[in-house]
């Protein structure tokens, strides 16, 4: 996955006289699977101990987590449905990471994307469904894209830290959503839970044939593959990685760093905005505060666990989607609070970051370069 980067490093360091064994050649790439995997298992262990402190059996915990995430076809579908927005919000962190930026405002772009997509659908009520859906995709992507581009632009032209500004934009997006949903865009019929009007059953994007998994999963996988190609196999992506490695060098070779930042941030936000559109057009059918379900924040974890690699995001999002899908079963069977999924995610995140210290230090993978 990141093997081409790792191989390039290996190729530069292996002396021609040596006879590189498998481990020596692929030690670098194996690390990228082995170390996060070990961190994940360690985190599950810590969570098991944590749960045991509250008198629950860790073995039951692991069993129900597996059952709820991947045990049956039903839970697989639940997992994949949750993975779809996670892939898209993770790209919102992973794409700017290529430029060395830490964007954590995917949740905000998701909410704005949901709002613009819903607004578009409500305006276009009489148009044919396919046109409405296409317009919703565009509106969601543009809305979310501009939202994160704002954070990128502020970083480039005003030196405002993008991590903090993108997070503040989440709270501002939530306020805008609540304001519109309770005011201008409110469906008068929604009494207890202020919502917009429904976009209409005909305009929903529906499920992949033979499953209950909506088309959003395909959107996510396509977006992840497209991002991978963009970053690793185009001149633009190469320029972005150069700028991410060394801004000075990028400027010296004549790259327009500002344009790179704005474009990448737009694409990142567009991806999270698409997640918002998908949640509206495939799950909720309307916009209300339910959309702030934390997909944007879990997406950050997915991106870091995937080491910001767009292709690795797909399996990691499925894994994290599985963890959140198992939350319901843990609540019913073990009586764990719904926040237990969040605790586990936090432990995984901490473990994965701490494991960064291990790269290049595992004896049997190191070999003699």
């Amino acid at each position, binding site marked *: 996955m990141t093997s081409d980067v790792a191989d390039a490093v290996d190729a530069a360091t292996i002396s021609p006289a040596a006879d590189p064994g498998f481990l020596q050649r692929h030690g670098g790439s194996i690390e990228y699977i082995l170390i996060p995997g070990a961190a994940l298992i360690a985190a599950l262990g810590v969570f098991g101990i944590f749960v045991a402190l509250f008198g629950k059996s860790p073995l039951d915990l692991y069993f129900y987590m597996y059952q709820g995430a991947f045990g049956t076809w039903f839970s697989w579908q639940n997992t994949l449905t949750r993975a779809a927005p996670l892939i898209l919000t993770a790209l919102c962190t992973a794409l700017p990471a290529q430029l060395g930026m830490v964007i954590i405002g995917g949740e905000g772009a998701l909410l704005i994307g949901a709002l613009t997509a819903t607004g578009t659908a409500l305006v276009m009520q009489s148009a044919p469904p396919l046109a409405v859906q296409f317009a919703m995709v565009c509106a969601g992507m543009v809305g979310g894209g501009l939202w994160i581009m704002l954070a990128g632009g502020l970083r480039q*032209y005003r*030196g405002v*830290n993008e991590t903090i500004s993108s997070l*503040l934009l989440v709270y501002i997006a939530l*306020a*805008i959503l609540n304001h519109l949903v309770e005011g201008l865009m409110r469906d008068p019929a929604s009494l207890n839970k202020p919502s917009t009007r429904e976009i209409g059953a005909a305009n929903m994007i529906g499920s992949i044939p033979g499953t209950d998994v909506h088309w959003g999963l395909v959107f996510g996988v396509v977006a992840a593959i497209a991002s991978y190609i963009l970053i690793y196999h185009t001149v633009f992506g190469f320029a972005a990685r150069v700028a991410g490695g060394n801004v000075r060098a990028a400027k010296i070779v004549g790259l327009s760093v500002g344009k790179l930042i704005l474009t990448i941030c737009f694409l990142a936000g567009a991806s999270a905005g698409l997640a918002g559109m998908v949640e509206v057009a495939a799950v909720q059918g309307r916009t209300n505060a339910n959309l702030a379900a934390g997909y944007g924040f879990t997406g950050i974890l997915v991106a870091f666990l995937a080491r910001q690699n767009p292709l690795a995001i797909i399996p990691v999002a499925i894994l994290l989607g599985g963890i959140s899908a198992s939350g319901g079963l843990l609540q019913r069977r073990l009586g764990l609070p719904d926040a237990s999924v969040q605790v586990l995610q*936090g432990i995984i995140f901490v473990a994965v*970051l701490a494991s960064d210290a291990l790269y290049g230090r595992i004896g049997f993978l190191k070999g003699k370069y």
Partner: protein
Amino acid sequence: MADGTIGLWTVPLAVFGGAIRVSTPFLFVSLGECITERSGRINLGLEGTLVMGAMSAYGISYLSGSPWLGVLAAGVTGALLGALHAGICSLPRVNDIAVGIALMLFGTGLAFYLGKPLIEPTAPRLPAIDFGWWSDVAQVRAALRINVLFLIGVVLAPILYWAFRTTRWGLLIRTAGESSDAARAMGYSVLAIRLRATMVGGFLAGIGGSFLSLFYPGSWNEGLSSGQGITAVALVIFARWDPMLCLWASLAFGGAAALGPALQSVGVTSGYHLFNAAPYILTMAIMIITCSPKRTLTGAPAELSITR
């Protein structure tokens, strides 16, 4: 709600009272973060620390009957989370911003998990001092009911300002933040200094959280903090790492945050959510005005990753 005798003065008065009430968590978190950042490390996890502090303060206050024990527990919880942050950051090649994000998610998750049984019961709250005894107007009295924690925070700011300038500890923290090589050359362990600075920062942020659950709003629920912690971290940046400026900035923020409820109390309800977002919009606006792409911020610790 509007009292005939003071009429329109209700709004500025409520904003003033609100500024004092709402600013306290901002003040404690920003002072704590100020110490941490001066030592050359940024802790974005204080949002999680704030929520954990609020939860543990409420829990201990409920179990022990003493709100002050709750405040202490919140501080200790915060210090432990700070130690966790510092511990992970002292491993090689670990990014402090990413660890902060992780602890933000971990802290809030853990607080919601452990705090589930605390949503129902009522815990004893912190007492307030009545500075408005001389007035007959209810709104004035309400605005001047000031919590002791706020006063402690107000005293703490100049003490920190003085300590950074004149004490040995202040100098050590600044040395670690400006040049870790210099601190090392003097024979001090930079990691140990940062560990302590992060723990003290977490301690103060935890106390800020206890104010949320034990005084204002004064109950424990999962919507208690919505970004106050991260706003306070941003606040430190445009307060130029100066504890006194942190105090004034916190008061301005408290006032901005009190605007929505104050307007609602006189019947202005449209735009309620937008007014509630005022502190975030204000933070963005001030960051846009005060930051510049051409120079590093004056007063920024040279070792701080966020300003590089």
